[in-house]
């Protein structure tokens, strides 16, 4: 399986990019280091969503909940208990995956829009509890000033930590997608009836995919805490979830790396357009509408189609 990574054309580019990004803090000012770290966190989040949306074809409409739950789990372990810190790092993804298992168990019983609506209602339930439970979660204020250990004390340290975790997560995601499980998942996306007919347990595979995706969303949540040292309930609100979906669409949801590009575009827009005008969502909305009209495959999908001479394996296929 590792061969597929070593020999794939993308791996050379990815390695070169990784080295470049590792050198980044030596070159660019502090503010850009922070923005890049934020892009990595958001990228991981978008990539985790794309596992189920782009590759799994499920209407995962409330992915932000798992991101928020992972971040809150980490934040609560650090601020409310005297447990060693590593428990916080482990708790984030595990709690997120557990919540993913619970919510997913109900959702996979339904399809498409009903799947989405059940997930939105269950997710909103969690959001409402977090939003209101002042004594435990800090309510709508969130939790701020979360203390980090010395090895993450400076921004550069956090940057490298986030970059390394992102790189490992990406390799894992790639391996999962190239595994027989990943192939089955994409088959289910393209034709669930036929998969059912050849004896694949569709719901179970979908549930596994949700658990994996929510696990990675939990990691992204933990990384967010590492970077920002705070959590707030907006992470679990449905607007956040739709924003993540938009990142997948922007980058292209039937490419592997597309969602990362989408995340970079979104964070970049918010940061740099947000400097000149407070109406950056207006710009984002206009870009999205143009994209839906002219580049429905996303930016990455468009680039791949244009520059790759022989389009391989299902890259032109719609995910839904």
């Amino acid at each position: 399986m590792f061969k597929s990574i070593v020999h794939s054309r993308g791996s050379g580019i990815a390695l070169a990019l990784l080295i470049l990004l590792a050198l980044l803090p030596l070159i660019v000012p502090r503010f850009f280091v922070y923005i890049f770290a934020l892009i990595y966190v958001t990228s991981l989040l978008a990539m985790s969503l794309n596992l189920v949306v782009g590759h799994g074809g499920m209407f995962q409409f409330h992915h932000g909940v798992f991101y928020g739950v992972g971040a809150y789990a980490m934040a609560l372990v650090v601020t409310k208990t005297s447990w060693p810190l590593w428990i916080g790092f482990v708790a984030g993804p595990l709690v997120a995956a557990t919540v993913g298992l619970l919510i997913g168990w109900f959702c996979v019983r339904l399809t498409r829009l009903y799947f989405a609506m059940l997930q939105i209602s269950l997710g909103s339930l969690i959001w409402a509890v977090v939003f209101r439970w002042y004594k435990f979660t800090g309510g709508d204020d969130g939790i701020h000033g979360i203390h980090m250990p010395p090895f993450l004390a400076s921004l550069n340290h956090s940057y490298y930590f986030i970059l390394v975790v992102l790189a490992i997560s990406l390799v894992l995601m790639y391996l999962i997608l190239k595994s027989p499980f990943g192939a089955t998942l994409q088959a289910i996306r393209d034709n669930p009836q036929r998969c059912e007919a050849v004896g694949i347990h569709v719901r179970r595979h979908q549930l596994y995919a949700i658990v994996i995706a929510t696990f990675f969303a939990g990691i992204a949540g933990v990384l967010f805490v590492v970077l920002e040292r705070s959590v707030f309930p907006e992470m679990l609100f449905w607007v956040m979830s739709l924003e993540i979906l938009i990142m997948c669409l922007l980058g292209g949801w039937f490419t592997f790396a597309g969602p990362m590009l989408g995340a970079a575009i979104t964070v970049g827009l918010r940061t740099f357009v947000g400097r000149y005008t407070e109406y950056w969502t207006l710009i984002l909305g206009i870009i999205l509408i143009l994209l839906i009209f002219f580049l429905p495959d996303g930016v990455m999908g468009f680039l791949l189609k244009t520059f790759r001479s022989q389009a391989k394996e299902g890259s032109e296929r719609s995910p839904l």
Partner: protein
Amino acid sequence: MGGVTYGPAELISQLLVGLSRSMILFIVCAGLSFVLGVLRVPNVAHGSLYMIGAFVTFTISKWIGGWVGFWLALVLAPLVVALISLIAERALFCHLYQREHLLLLLFTFALSLILGDLVKIVWGAEYRSVSAPDVLKGSISMFGSSFPRYNLFLLVMGPLVAILLWLFVNKTKIGRISRAAAVDREMVGVLGINVSWVFAIAFVIGCFLAGLGGALVAPTVGITLGMDHTLIIEAFLIVTIGGLGNMWGALLGSLIFGVTQAFGVLMWPQFAIVFPYLAVVIVLLLRPTGLVKSVW
């Protein structure tokens, strides 16, 4: 929780508060559901149109002033919203009906981002309020408790909208065509009917109801940015538990949502917003495709 007991008077007045909230929700959700049923578009921008309805009501009733201002706003604000939606439909939506639901949903979300920022540009980020005309101010006492008159007015408006919408869908030619188009749009096209315009009319009517809901809610809440976000999520859940595209389902869903929220306030004020979501989850687990038959 616990400890405090409520007499029948409090319960009835709280029920009335819940029911009047339900009527606002119903008017908005009937529009959303109608658009979902006929056009199959999950319109996230519906919430923004509701917000615009409320802001336009504020502006008109401030310009004109007095009781005339409010009643005029109640008529004009939904029409302004309908006009905006007509422009959006003819310029953008009508090219996209053949696309995936997910893409349509993201498209309408993009539209809601744009409309939200436009509202920020026009009206700013402050809270606005509208006062109801004198006829609807104050409260009257019934069953030993006092009811705000405006809530009673809402309780009249909800059923009125339901009846009018029912008459439109079932008794007018265009309504019947739109119902047919909901079931089989190609067949309707084959019969020589311009489906594109049927869709446009259905979309505008649905959005008109969003504007009307916004105008009606204006005197009862602080009008502010972000009111679209809370509403649209509630509206989608209501439409889903009612059965997509079914007006009576939207009514039933709104009643469940509004009343559980109102009683949640009595039972456990801190977590009142949790109760309606819990109700939605229970309904979806028991009847995943909605309480009333869906047209999907």
